């Protein structure tokens, strides 16, 4: 494993984001899309054996899901039972993982690229009706997708007998209504069926019994947006990008205390330091400060610190998991400088998870609430020195062993995700948190965000 130590000079490698960066004035229109090579990969794919697309292109590219879990896309497709139809492709566009904002950009600014990815993938897996489950808050994204779908239909890229190939495909764009849990694929399917968005026990996996109990593949927006480029480049060529089993590029949503927050598409294998400090990427910490800690893969991941060991780790999904027990997850990197109180960040994350727990599994429904209450009192000046151990005990009931990857007493990973900030506080900021409790320090005056938990803390 190599890593670049010293002055970082990493740059973007724009593949999926190339069009929306090159032509910001019309990247979302059919003309803007077709004038920059759009739908050519689909046209070419329609001349291929469908099964070869999954095996020889997508699997060979080493493409892994960009939504969080990093599961190999070609392998997922191969789980579909033979000769069982209809089967559905469902696009997970319910981007809600805190500090992730890449899918919104792809939906709003390159909707045809997503539709082309859906079309190629649907052809590859034998699907004639695909669904895009788009986050309810993305009103503009929904409009752009609807317009793109209509235009693609009118131009003959969707509908019956597409381009004379005999292949039929329609797409339904489904607007969600504000529930983070629906980003979990089985909850998403429940929601798409018109129910409360609660996760389902697996097996059966969606590939066997998903939407309407039919074989279903659920893929993320960025994952599918990458498919046309894999077809264009060839799977083997795409696999040359990246590092080890983290092939290709990924879009990292960089936010927080950096000089240049934003979405950056980079080749996997550069380091966190490159991403945060390179003048063409994050541009370093604001005010010339230092990284105190950062969350490397969305709110569900455990944290890393500003140590050289952590900053110089490569963006390699397996390496960071095996070495530090963190994940690249959804590609969100949140950076906090030395002015930040980690207990406050942990409390706000816990409040999020408690709010978004669907209530199906007792350890999560009850546990996330208790984690939030105890973190509230720690971060607001009412903590007790033994509170961190209390939190670990609560966490152990949701995620036994407190390890990553998670073990869990719940159906889905939301509950265990709420334990990540607790474990991170314990690992890196134990002294600081205990000192806060002993001194009754308040992290920040955040009365506007005060939760109902204040009664509990103040009454002690």
């Amino acid at each position, binding site marked *: 494993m190599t890593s670049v130590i010293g002055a970082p000079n990493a740059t973007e490698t724009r593949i999926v984001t190339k069009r929306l960066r090159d032509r910001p004035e019309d990247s979302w229109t059919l003309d803007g899309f077709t004038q920059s090579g759009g739908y050519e990969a689909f046209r070419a794919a329609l001349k291929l054996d469908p099964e070869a697309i999954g095996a020889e292109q997508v699997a060979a590219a080493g493409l892994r899901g960009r939504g969080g879990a990093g599961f190999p896309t070609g392998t997922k497709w191969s789980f579909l039972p033979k000769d069982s139809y209809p089967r559905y492709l469902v696009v997970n566009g319910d981007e809600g993982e*805190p500090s992730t904002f890449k899918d919104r950009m792809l939906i709003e600014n390159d909707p045809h690229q997503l539709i082309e990815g859906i079309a190629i993938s649907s052809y590859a897996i034998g699907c004639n009706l695909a669904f895009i489950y788009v986050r*309810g808050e993305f009103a503009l994204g929904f409009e752009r997708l609807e317009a793109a779908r209509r235009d693609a239909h009118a131009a003959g890229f969707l509908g019956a007998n597409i381009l004379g190939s005999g292949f039929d495909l329609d797409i*339904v764009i489904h607007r*969600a209504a504000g*529930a983070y849990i629906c980003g979990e694929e089985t909850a998403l399917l429940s929601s798409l069926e*018109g129910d409360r968005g609660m996760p389902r026990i697996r097996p059966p996996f969606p590939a066997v019994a998903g939407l309407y109990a039919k074989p279903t593949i659920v893929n993320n927006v960025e994952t599918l947006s990458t498919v046309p480029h894999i077809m264009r480049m060839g799977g083997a060529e795409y696999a040359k990008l990246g590092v080890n089993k983290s092939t290709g590029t990924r879009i990292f949503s960089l936010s*927080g*205390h950096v000089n240049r927050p934003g979405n950056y598409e980079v080749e996997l294998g550069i380091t966190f330091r490159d991403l945060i400090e390179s003048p063409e990427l994050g541009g370093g910490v604001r005010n010339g400060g230092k990284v105190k800690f950062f969350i490397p893969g969305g709110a569900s991941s455990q944290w890393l610190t500003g140590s050289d060991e952590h900053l110089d780790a490569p963006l390699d999904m397996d390496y960071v998991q095996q070495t530090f027990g963190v994940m690249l997850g959804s590609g969100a990197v*949140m950076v906090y400088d030395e002015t930040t109180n980690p207990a406050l960040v942990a409390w706000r994350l816990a409040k999020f998870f408690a709010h*978004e727990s669907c209530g199906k599994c007792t350890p999560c429904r009850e546990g996330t609430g208790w984690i939030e209450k105890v973190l509230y009192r720690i971060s607001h000046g009412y903590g007790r020195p033994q509170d961190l151990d209390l939190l670990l005990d609560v966490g152990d009931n949701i995620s036994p062993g407190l390890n990553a990857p998670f073990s869990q007493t719940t159906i889905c990973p939301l509950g265990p995700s709420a334990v990540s900030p607790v474990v991170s506080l314990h690992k890196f900021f134990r002294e600081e948190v205990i000192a806060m409790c002993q001194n009754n320090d308040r992290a920040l005056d955040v009365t506007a965000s005060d939760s109902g938990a204040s009664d509990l803390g103040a009454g002690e």
Partner: protein
Amino acid sequence: MAFTPENLLLANEIVARYPKTKSAILPLAHLAQDQDGYLTQDAMREIAGMIGVTPAEVLGTCSFYTMFKRDEVGRLVVSVCTNVTCLVMGGPEVLEHLEQRYASDKEVTIEEVECLAACGNAPAMQVNYEFHESLTPGSATEIIEAYKAGELTARGVSGGVAGGGQG
């Protein structure tokens, strides 16, 4: 109020898109909320009739989702993010300011929401699901005032554009 003739046509078209009609609950509830300003009991009854489930099932589904307002709200729903990037970039200060400023303004409903996927330009808010980013308490107020004065055109309360934005 029942769906207008125009929205009823659209609603029937939405139901027809899905292999199973119950899938249409969310899009129909958005349509009704845009029309009526919030999700009324009558609308949930009408939706239930259209797709062949009980009104309780529609309520059961809709009550799960934060975007559906089952009580009257202002014409402008302002959703302010205070999640972990906005938290350290001034989101709570924007929220506190707006909550105080519009506490007695019936036209404006201020709510605290979870991450809106606008963290690159934090802090962020939405007004009827239109994004506004890189805010200060002052600029957020100016934006809301511009909507109130009609200088900015608001979407429906569910984020649709008047006349079929949920199409």
